[in-house]
């Protein structure tokens, strides 16, 4: 009988290190600085600022700081990541509403979590699968993010605010905020 040989894995995935530990959750947002990371896609700024205003008004969050990525298709640059980690207690990043930027938004969230900052990544629901695939290749398959209803780019300001209000319970859940705190 011929000698049996193993079929080789063509992915190289087995070599990838996995770190799937979420950063510690804050329980309460009182006085915490909220980092808003805008990926430059249309309506991202308004969505993020509306969510931040809700967190300030109803959950006692402190200052909200807005940061802008230089390219939506790849994850946040190291220097900006370090700046945000230094200056903020929690991060919200939006909006991954295309193929590369949805994956990049999820990768951003994973990078912030690994740097110890609780983060809500917001993609649009058309790109749920690419977000999940990115979480997989990053070795964080269960990473939890929020998929807002597609589309985002063509919405009016009022419609963006409605999307933000719909997102609020999920934002609070992902950040681990307990009701009423």
């Amino acid at each position, binding site marked *: 009988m011929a000698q049996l040989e193993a079929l080789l894995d*063509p992915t190289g995935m087995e070599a990838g290190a996995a770190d799937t530990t979420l950063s510690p959750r804050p329980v309460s947002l009182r006085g915490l600085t909220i980092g808003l990371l805008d990926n430059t896609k249309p309506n991202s700024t308004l969505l993020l600022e509306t969510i931040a205003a809700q967190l300030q008004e109803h959950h006692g969050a402190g200052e909200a700081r807005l940061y802008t990525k230089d390219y939506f298709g790849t994850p946040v640059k190291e220097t900006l990541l370090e700046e945000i980690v230094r200056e903020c207690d929690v991060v919200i990043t939006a909006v991954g509403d295309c*193929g590369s930027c949805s994956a990049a938004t999820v990768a951003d969230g994973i990078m912030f979590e690994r740097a110890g900052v609780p983060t809500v990544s917001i993609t649009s629901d058309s790109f749920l699968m690419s977000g999940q695939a990115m979480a997989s*290749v990053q070795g964080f398959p269960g990473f939890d993010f929020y998929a807002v209803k597609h589309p985002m780019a063509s919405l009016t300001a009022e419609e963006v605010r409605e999307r933000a209000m719909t997102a609020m319970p999920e934002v609070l859940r992902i950040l681990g905020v307990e009701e009423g705190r």
Partner: protein
Amino acid sequence: MDETTTAEADALREIVEHYFDKEWTDGLPVVPVTETLLAEFLATVARDPDEVLFSITHLNRHLTVRLAAINAAMAGCRSEYFPVVVAAWEAIAKEPHPARGIWQSTTGTAPLLVVNGPVRERIGLNSTGNIFGSGFRANATIGRAIRLGCINVFGLHPHKLDQATQGTPAKYSACIAENEEQSPWPALHTEHGFEASDDVVTAFVIRSVIHIEARHTQSPEQLARDLTDTIVRTGALIHEYTSALLVLTPEHADVFASAGWSKDDLRSFVYDNAVRKREDLVAVGKDALSHKTRWRLAATHPDSMPDSASQTEEPDEVRALSNPTSIQIMVAGADNAGVSAVVEIFTLNPPRVHPYSHQQIGATA
């Protein structure tokens, strides 16, 4: 004898299905790869199996020589094709868009590989009839080796990380050789400073291959204008400028060459004539640029800013090409008809002067 054959057939089928179950395919069956076959591939290159040929940093994924070999073998390559596959990955690694995530994009681009030099003959790469079609193992499997690497090593599975809205048939495989023997001009790689005797892969990131039917003319101006009309089609003008590879059939190349036109003459003519009237762009809502992405949109859009042409002395003449070298020219296909192709090259802002990258085959790291 019959029993033995039946048992092996079951085992073979099981192996084929194993690859589908693992999602290690492009939708077609692959060749099973074990260490014995892998060793044959690795023996064809003077490379460390752990050397990284191409990384997509933001995916934390790296394609090593070993992984390139496993996927090339799975694609059905013969081991002697492997030096071409290695050079192809190195050419792709020099392209700016793949490393930045363009293959996750809705745009749905694909790599196109062009091979020049004596290696074409050695491994049986097709450069003549049915150049973009099927039927040639070297062309089919070298192109497929890249696709399987994208899927398996970089996780670019459709519906997942690969979010192409429609994609292109070139995503299965796109590797062609130049028909140097029937070209009236110097080969593509010699324009880049290589010797004719060098083996070279040139990589392009393409959107589509468009058929040009032009059996009607011996006039170089008419033929060049017929090609140019496809280059300036508004559907291609998502950004301010575009780029194209002309894959001319020998008959078309001869129309130009026998009139005394060099490749540069053709390039200059196309560059000068690749112009849209502003009213054409207004008609399709692409007469201005968006502030952040510089994608084309209507001047009436709130995010719009004027395009470059509007700041020139002829604001109603909008150039589709930033540079004569935005047009690359090669010869391939059978010498039997006036049928050529315009290959649309993905072009962002700012456009690149040379919209391709190349790598010599058999070079050591």
